């Protein structure tokens, strides 16, 4: 069976629109917790997610993926910027309305061990959101049983407790709970990163099936570029709090335009010894700068093999290329152009 997400058209108004979202954390020090700096965890991110679409969000640890997801759902209050759900402002919603909006937007966390209440039976964990939203015990339990079945758990598992389950099964429980209120959008924050590969594939397939069955939109956050390639329709690449490139899956993976995207893709090892032997790898120098002291101009310039003078004082704006591909770089690479060759031609 094939499941080619690229055949799904992305049309109409987006389900979710994120506009210039900023989240800063103060760095405090000393006895009086004086503010001594700011961590720019998310610095002006704009994104759309359409109906029945999976937007993958990739980037190395600390680039702001988790903060982005949590700020969208207002689990963290944004410093500035706006989030709109089906045309309605999430950022400006009063608490009572926010509770309603949360029905439509759910989150699944990475750690299936930490995110489930150990003292509740599985059925009650899954039914809890329904109870909170005023469903009767009987209705909530019946719905929980359906969900237990939908995520591929055995029906008698409802009476058991989280510690009796393996990582993959716990992640299924977390997914069932997120589905309880029949959301439109689920933010999946590294949902398979903690799982072994054989089990990871089970959960990825489950997520694909549930998306088709319930017409869900996903924001799939991960640092694993292979999983993101597999599951996403479009992909946003983040570096130090910013989206540096966003495009449909094939353009990103086949024609990466931002130097960081090319470096990231070239660093991923492929499970094929011959391919690895013949591979030319861009090994980026240096470490990720601290988000508390971001470089001036382009944030990637301290590691970029083709950085020029201009990159140090002028921040690149997001620009749209011919194929609809958006990229924030002064010198975007054209389709087929390789960073290694461009860098070599410039004597780097």
């Amino acid at each position: 069976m094939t499941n080619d997400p690229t055949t799904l058209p992305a049309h109409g108004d987006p389900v979710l629109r994120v506009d210039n979202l900023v989240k800063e954390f103060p760095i405090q020090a000393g006895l009086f917790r004086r503010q001594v700096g700011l961590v720019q965890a998310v610095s002006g991110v704009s994104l759309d997610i359409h109906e029945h679409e999976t937007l993958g969000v990739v980037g190395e640890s600390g680039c702001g993926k988790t903060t982005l997801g949590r700020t969208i759902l207002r689990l963290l209050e944004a410093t500035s910027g706006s989030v709109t759900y089906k045309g309605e402002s999430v950022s400006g919603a009063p608490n009572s309305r926010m509770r309603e909006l949360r029905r439509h937007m759910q989150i699944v966390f990475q750690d299936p061990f930490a995110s489930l209440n150990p003292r509740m039976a599985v059925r009650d964990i899954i039914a809890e959101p329904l109870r909170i939203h005023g469903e009767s015990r009987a209705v909530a339990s019946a719905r929980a049983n359906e969900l237990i079945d939908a995520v591929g758990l055995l029906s008698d598992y409802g009476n058991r407790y989280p510690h009796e389950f393996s990582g993959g099964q716990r992640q299924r429980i977390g997914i069932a709970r997120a589905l309880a209120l029949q959301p439109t959008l689920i933010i999946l924050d590294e949902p398979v990163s903690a799982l072994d590969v054989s089990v990871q594939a089970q959960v990825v397939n489950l997520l694909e099936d549930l998306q088709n069955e319930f017409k869900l939109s996903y924001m799939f956050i991960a640092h694993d570029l292979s999983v993101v390639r597999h599951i996403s329709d479009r992909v946003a690449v983040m570096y130090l709090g910013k989206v540096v490139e966003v495009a449909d899956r094939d353009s990103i993976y086949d024609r990466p335009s931002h130097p960081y995207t090319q470096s990231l893709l070239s660093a991923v090892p492929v499970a094929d010894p011959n391919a690895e032997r013949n591979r030319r790898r861009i090994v980026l120098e240096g470490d990720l700068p601290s988000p508390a002291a971001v470089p001036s101009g382009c944030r990637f310039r301290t590691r970029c093999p083709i950085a020029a003078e201009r990159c140090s004082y002028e921040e690149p704006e997001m620009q749209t290329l011919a194929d609809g591909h958006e990229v924030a770089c002064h010198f975007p690479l054209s389709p087929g152009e390789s960073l290694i060759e461009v860098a070599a031609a410039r004597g780097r």
Partner: protein
Amino acid sequence: MTEPVISFDDLSVSFPTDDGMVRAVRNVSFDVEPGEVMAVVGESGSGKSVTALAAMRLHPGSTEITGEVRFGGRDLLGIGEKEMRRVRGNGIAMIFQDPMTALNPVMKVGAQIAEMVLTHDDVSKKEAWTRAADLLESVGVPEPGRRVKQYPHEFSGGMRQRAMIAMAIANGPDLLIADEPTTALDVTIQAQVLEVMKTAQEATGAAILLITHDLGVVAGIADRVVVMYGGRVFESGSADQVFYRSQNPYTRGLMSSIPRLDAPKGERLIPIPGTPPNVLNPPSGCAFGPRCAFASDGCHEAHAELMSVGFDGTHRSRCHKLAELPDLFAAAETR
């Protein structure tokens, strides 16, 4: 034929616990040849780390160990603690996932590497510090002269990993054991560290025993591969044999369950059903039996022996159905 650097011979490691005996490693045998990279792969809990720690004799006192780990003409499981200390650091060095396992947080990085040099070579303290800076330089730490005087917390994750590698190669060991050395690192830093390991290996001629769950990392660096499942070796052979001509249902399942950067788009992943075995209550017969698409009654009665496949003895697999596997795999492909 040259002597292997290290030979694991019928190694079994068990931990008595309140809940029963954990048989973490069962009858594991394989060799590592001089200068090669041997990878041990398998999912979490398959016994990879326990195998490595047994070679370093870094296991709790109550552990029950049988079999042999031969290194430099003797069985490491039978020598005294004093002799073992000489082996650690000089003969075999270890690189961990968390560099802080090996680095002392309150000691300057240079002092730690110099101390390592001094345990082996009779040189002046000044000379040892110079060597420390040279070693840091060889693993790609910029400004080594300044860096030697810093503490580990002043190093980034990737730089700490390099410092640990510098310390590990300080005395030119014959074998480097690296347990998930890049698992906690981001992919761009992982690429740097893998390159440093390759360079260090070329410079010192050491063999590497690389433990990882990442088949991509294995494909990029390993000459030979051991696949473990449920504490046993399920398959071993050259990287090409294991990746392209696997003769084992578990290895095949593992390979097809990973999403690959170069896979055809839109193809569905093929997971292995079920979950890895419970160490306290392993399945009877073949440990992979409950998850194996090819299992039949016999598989659940007794486990298979590790057998040679092919003609030259370099490729081994553990499965009752070795003779039928080519047909079974072909039939599964066309389904």
